[in-house]
């Protein structure tokens, strides 16, 4: 691992093929050539743009109801039709990316920070701390996220913050486990021994010496978790425990419209379902690309 001398936050610019690249330049270079990554990034960016600016270019107000034109099938003036309150489905799908793309990344960031700190500590100290904490984490991971979330949200009430915290904390053990195994390998290396000989404190050794060297597995795990976070947020919203009305969120829209599916009003749910599908697959393609770039 020679990444110690490269500031992690400052990836080197991609150099021409012949030049020698820093490790991060290498990764960027292989990412820029990975079809999987670029496809995923394109999909992800599309939805990010929709989330940020969608409000400005959609043809209708996603929240404005128009009962007279309720449940009209897709046509020229309503591309994706209208829902039971006459709201334009196209506008709702575009703007519906906003909440999920706020909640899921924040949950992932929380999971990454908590998981990394925990993983560093148990990986660095090992011994009894590791034994106890690892067992607790394993027990925690054995329960499906949906169930944890359900219980926590019943106890704490529904809000975006609760969803972020619940998903963040239930993903943290998984990240902690990844970080732990990376740290276990790192702590045997000479630079850690050198730091100890210099009488650096445990905190310094963990966060200043080891952390920069375990960034790659953390990055990979974080992108993978983002996919699962979107999965979880969408599912919770669908169950009514996540994002709340009147948000045009996709999962929420599906849950309020799928009851009428038997009546043939397919357009009220299909586009939301496809939107979730595309976002989840996009993020997973990105994760796959990142994984490939760090492991080649």
């Amino acid at each position, binding site marked *: 691992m020679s990444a110690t001398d490269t500031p992690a936050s400052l990836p080197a610019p991609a150099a021409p093929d012949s030049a020698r690249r820093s490790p991060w330049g290498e990764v960027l270079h292989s990412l820029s050539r990975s079809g999987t990554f670029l496809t995923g990034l394109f999909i992800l960016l599309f939805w990010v743009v929709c989330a940020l600016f969608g409000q400005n270019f959609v043809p209708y107000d996603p929240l404005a109801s128009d009962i007279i034109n309720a449940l009209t099938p897709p046509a020229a003036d309503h591309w994706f039709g209208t829902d039971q309150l006459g709201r334009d489905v196209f506008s709702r799908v575009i703007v519906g990316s906003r909440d999920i793309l706020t909640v899921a990344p924040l949950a992932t960031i929380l999971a990454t920070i908590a998981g990394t700190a925990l993983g560093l500590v148990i990986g660095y100290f090992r011994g009894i701390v590791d034994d106890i904490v690892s*067992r*607790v984490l394993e027990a925690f991971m054995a329960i*499906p996220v949906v169930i944890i979330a359900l219980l926590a949200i019943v106890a704490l009430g529904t809000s975006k913050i609760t969803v972020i915290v619940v998903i963040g904390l239930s993903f943290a053990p998984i990240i902690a486990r990844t970080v732990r195994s990376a740290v276990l390998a790192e702590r045997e290396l000479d630079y850690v021994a050198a730091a100890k000989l210099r009488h650096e404190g445990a905190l310094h050794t963990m966060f200043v010496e080891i952390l920069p060297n375990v960034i790659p597995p953390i990055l990979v795990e974080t992108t993978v978790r983002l996919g699962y976070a979107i999965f979880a947020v969408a599912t919770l919203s669908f*169950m009514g425990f996540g994002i709340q009305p009147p948000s045009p969120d996709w999962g929420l829209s599906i849950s309020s419209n*799928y009851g009428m599916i038997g009546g043939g009003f*397919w357009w009220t*749910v299909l586009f939301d379902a496809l939107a979730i599908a595309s976002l989840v*697959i996009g993020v997973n393609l990105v994760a796959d690309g990142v994984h490939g770039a760090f492991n080649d």
Partner: protein
Amino acid sequence: MVFLGGQVLPGNVGRAILGPFADQRAVDALNHSLGVDRPLLVQYGSWIWNFLHGDMGTSYVFRAPVAPFVVDALGNSMKLALVAFVLVVPIGILGGVIAALNFNRPLDRIISLGGLSVTVLPEFVTGIILILIFGVWLRWLPIAAAWPKGAGFFTQLYYLILPSLPLFLVLFGYIARMARSGMIEALDSDYTRTAVLKGLPWRTVIWRHVLRNALLPTITVIATQTGYLIGGLVVIETLFRYQGIGSLIFTAARGKDFPMLEAGILTIGIVYAVATLVADFLYSVLNPRIRLGAEQ
């Protein structure tokens, strides 16, 4: 290493039941707020005691003992899970094996990428899309898993196909991926080469040498998916209005029916523990190395 895994697993199972549920109990106790003056442990103990004697408490909502509801729901869920498993285990393994035998050819790409894509999608998204295709457009299958009273085996099966498909899709990706990587590893091994060089027919090599070794890890994966399956059931049963343990927990959580909720969750915990144990047992029966290790 494998032997160690077998030793650690049952230990975790115990914790999986006790640790998290003690927590959940604390959470619920908070909600109960009044009427909980006994120490938490005593309360928890007596609740477990009653539970073991078949008294799961009285539902707040139905004003009736919880037990019959839970038993009914568990039976229904098991039917659904069974249909999904019976479909997915052979097909998933077959998919993985075919992909491995066509390693890096288009067929492998299709199975791997397809499997990965459907695995990462939330169940309700694939569920909605499947309902639209088979229930609304083609009208082949019923969109709600509610069969007429006294329906026979095949009628029930007919109603369960659609709900089991989303579970099938999620599990298919995992199982196929594990079977594929197990196969590739086994195909690459020395004993396979020896068998081929010995002049054994290819078919015999695959059946007697490769498959046996390749499928062991797959079995573990199938078992670990029980936990996932339970989370999936909550969503699927809600979507298809199926009276299983998942929808029981969901309804109880929404209605703040704590005795029902606790009984449901504890039941799930037990099912999970039993499934893990069975998997552990199966694994050690199938793997001669573990049997030896245990005797030493």
